[in-house]
C-alpha cells in the first residue's frame, strides 16, 4: 500500500512568485519567529524588523539568495545578544545578493554579522556595539564578510570589537565607506583581499585605525589593489586589548593606517591626527613563515598627499624615546621597515628602519630619515571597489 496523503508545507515550486514582505515584531518568541522567517523566505523577499529590542539567545542565520533584512534604523531596531548561549556569531549569512540594512546588534558573544561565501552583499546603516566598551572578551569582528566577491559596507557604525570592527577577509571587489569605527583594536581591516576601496570613513579611538594585511597559510592570499583615501583617522590611542594570540595583538597603540605585505596600495587624501606611534606604517609580515605561495613584502605601496597633524609623538616602539630624540622630538609621519617597495609623493617626511631581511626582528634596524622615490606612474585604480549593482540597491 502506498500512502499518498501526508501533511506537508509545499514550498519548493518552480513557478516564479512575487516577492513578499515578512514583518517581525519584538517580544515573546522573537528568536523562533525571526529565524523561521529567515529560513522560509524566498529569493527577493524582504524581512522587516519593527522597531524595538529583540532578546535573542542563539545566533541567527540566512541562507536564501536575494533576501533583504531591513530594520527601523540602527537606533530603532536592536537585536540584543547579551544573553546569547550558542553559535559563533549573531547573524551568519551564507547566500548571495543579500542586503542587510537599518538595524543594530548589541553584545554578540562571538562575531557580529559574518557573511561567508556570500557574494554581492550590502551592509547599509548597520550598528554593532559591545556596550561595555573595549574589553578582551568582546567578540572578534563586528562586520565580517569573508570569501566573498562584491562587498559594499556603507554607513555602518562599529564599536568595541576585540579584533577588527569592520573586517573584510579573503574577498574581492570591496567598498567600505561612510562608516564609523570607534574603540576597536583595529577599526577597519582589509585582509588577504583584492580590489578594495576604503573611503570617507572615520576611524577613531581604535588601537590602529585602518589596516591592510596579507597573511600566510590561508586559502586566499596575495592581497592588493587597495585604495585608502579621504578617511579621517584621528586619535587612535586605545591600548591594545586583543587576546595575545591574534595577529592584531601586535598592532601598536597609535597606529593610523598600516600596510603589512600586500601589493599596490594607495594611501592618499586622508587626514591623520593623534596617532602617536605612526600615522602611516608600511612593513613586511613580521613572523617567520613556510608557505611558499606567500610574499611577505609590501610591494608598490604609494603614500600620496595626505594631511598630517603631527607624527609619532609617543611611539610604542622599542627604543622609542631614543628614536624620538634622534628625530627632534617626534617621529616623522610615515614609517617604513625598509623591506619591499614604497613610493612617496611630494615632501611627506618619513623614516625607515632599514631592515634587510624579513622575519628577523628589529635587531638589525638602522633607523634613518626616509628618502623614498616618487611613484613611477599613476596608480591604476581600475576594477577597484564594489560592483555598481550593489550601489543601486541602497536607493531601494
Amino acid at each position, binding site marked *: 500500500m502506498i500512502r499518498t496523503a501526508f501533511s*506537508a508545507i509545499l*514550498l519548493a515550486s518552480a513557478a516564479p512568485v512575487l516577492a513578499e514582505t515578512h514583518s517581525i515584531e519584538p517580544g515573546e518568541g522573537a528568536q523562533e519567529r525571526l529565524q523561521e522567517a529567515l529560513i522560509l523566505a524566498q529569493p527577493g523577499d524582504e524581512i522587516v524588523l519593527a522597531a524595538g529590542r529583540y532578546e535573542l539567545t542563539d545566533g541567527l542565520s540566512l541562507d536564501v539568495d536575494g533576501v533583504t533584512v531591513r530594520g527601523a534604523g540602527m537606533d530603532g531596531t536592536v537585536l540584543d545578544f547579551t544573553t546569547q548561549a550558542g553559535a559563533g556569531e549573531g547573524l551568519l549569512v551564507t547566500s548571495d545578493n543579500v542586503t542587510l540594512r537599518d538595524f543594530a546588534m548589541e553584545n554578540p558573544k562571538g562575531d557580529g554579522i559574518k557573511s561567508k561565501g556570500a557574494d554581492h552583499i550590502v551592509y547599509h546603516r548597520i550598528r554593532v556595539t559591545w556596550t561595555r566598551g573595549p574589553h578582551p572578551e568582546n567578540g572578534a569582528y563586528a562586520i565580517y564578510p569573508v570569501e566573498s566577491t562584491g562587498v559594499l559596507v556603507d554607513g555602518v557604525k562599529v564599536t568595541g570589537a576585540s579584533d577588527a570592527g569592520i573586517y573584510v577577509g579573503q574577498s574581492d571587489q570591496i567598498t567600505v565607506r561612510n562608516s564609523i569605527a570607534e574603540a576597536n583594536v583595529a577599526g577597519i581591516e582589509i585582509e588577504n583581499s583584492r580590489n578594495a576601496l576604503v573611503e570617507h570613513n572615520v576611524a577613531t579611538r581604535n588601537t590602529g585605525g585602518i589596516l591592510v594585511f596579507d597573511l600566510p597559510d590561508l586559502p586566499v592570499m596575495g592581497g592588493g589593489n587597495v585604495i585608502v583615501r579621504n578617511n579621517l583617522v584621528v586619535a587612535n590611542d586605545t591600548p591594545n586589548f586583543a587576546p595575545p594570540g591574534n595577529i592584531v595583538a601586535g598592532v601598536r597603540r597609535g597606529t593610523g593606517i598600516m600596510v603589512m605585505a600586500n601589493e599596490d596600495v594607495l594611501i592618499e587624501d586622508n587626514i591623520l591626527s593623534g596617532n602617536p606611534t605612526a600615522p602611516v606604517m608600511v612593513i613586511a609580515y613580521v613572523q617567520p613563515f613556510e608557505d611558499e605561495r606567500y610574499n611577505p613584502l609590501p610591494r608598490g605601496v604609494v603614500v600620496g598627499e595626505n594631511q598630517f597633524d603631527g607624527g609619532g609623538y609617543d611611539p610604542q616602539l622599542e627604543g622609542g624615546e631614543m628614536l624620538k630624540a634622534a628625530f627632534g622630538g617626534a617621529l616623522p609621519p610615515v614609517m617604513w621597515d625598509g623591506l619591499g617597495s614604497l613610493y612617496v609623493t611630494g615632501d611627506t617626511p618619513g623614516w625607515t628602519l632599514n631592515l634587510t631581511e624579513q622575519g628577523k626582528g628589529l635587531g638589525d634596524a638602522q633607523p634613518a630619515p626616509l628618502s623614498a622615490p616618487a611613484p613611477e606612474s599613476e596608480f591604476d585604480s581600475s576594477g577597484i571597489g564594489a560592483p555598481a549593482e550593489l550601489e543601486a540597491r541602497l536607493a531601494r
Partner: protein
Amino acid sequence: MAMPPAMPEPVNDEAVSGPGFPRLLSDYGFFNNLQAHDVGPGVYKYELNTPLYSDGAEKLRYIYTPFGTEPVADGEGLLEFPVGSALIKTFAFGEGDERRLIETRVLLHRADGWLALPYLWNEEQTDARLAIAGARIDLTTPRGEAISYRVPNKNQCKECHGLDGEVVPIGPKVRNLSADWFAEHFGEVPEGADQLPVWAHREQASAADAARAYLDVNCAHCHRPGAMASNSGLDLRWEQDDPKALGIMKRPVAAGRGAGELLFDIVPGDPEGSILLHRMLSNDPGVAMPELGKASVDVEGTEAVRRWIAGMEKGE
C-alpha cells in the same frame, strides 16, 4: 483460514523525494513502530566506529534506500546514496524508563540535492514534529551536567553539512563503518572500510589515530577546504598529512578571543598551550569549538586530543 501475517508498510517515498517539508516524522514511515524505532523495509541501522560527540546523547542512526537500490562505496569516503535515500538520526538521553527521545534529524536525498530537516519529539514520545527554527531543551547529560541542549535550526544543519555550496551527509564514510556491517547488509566489504578506530576500544589504537579519528569526525566537516571553516586554513581531515594544515605551529587567523592567550593551534608537547584543545575545553560561545551541537565539554575526546599533542616531539 489463517490470516496472512501483516505486511510492514513501505516507506513513504513521496515524503522523502517529493517537494515540501513533511510536518511529522511519522509521515515518512521509516519505522513500523516509531517509538520503538522498529525499522521498516529498506531501512538499515548503522553505527560509526568513531562517532560525533553530541553532549553525550545516545544516537540511533539509520539509512534508507529505495526499493531495489543500495548505497555504493567509492573509495574510503562517503557512501554514495541514490536519489530517494534518507539518513535518519535520533538523539536520546536517559536510561531505561527515564529514556527520552529528544530530536530526530533527517537528511533527504532529493533530485535537487540533499535536504536537512530537524524534528522535535513530543512530550508523549509518540511522534516528532518539524522544528525548522530549532529549539532549546533543558536536560541532564549522562555525566550529570545540566545543560541547555540545542536542537539546530534548518540553516544550522547546513553549517556542518555544507560542502562547496551543497548539503552532503557527514557520518557514513566507508572508513568509519565496520567491515561486519557491510558484510551483513550488502554481502561484501569495500576497500578502505573500517579504518578509524572503534571509539570504545581506542586505547588499542595509537594516540595519533584516536585523536585524528576524533578530529576527522568532530571537526573536519567544517575545518576542510570548501566547508564552513575553510577560511581558517585549518584542515583536520583524516587524510590530511601536512602538519601546518593540521594546525601544528599554525597561527590562528580569525579566532578572535577564541585563541585566549595562546599563539598556535597546536604546540607539540604542550596541550595546554594549544588553541585547538583550549577551544575544545570551553563552553563559552565565541570561544567554544565546535560552535554548534555542543553545550558540554567532551571529556573523552579532549583527553584523546590532549594525549596526542602531549606525545608529539617538541619542536616537531
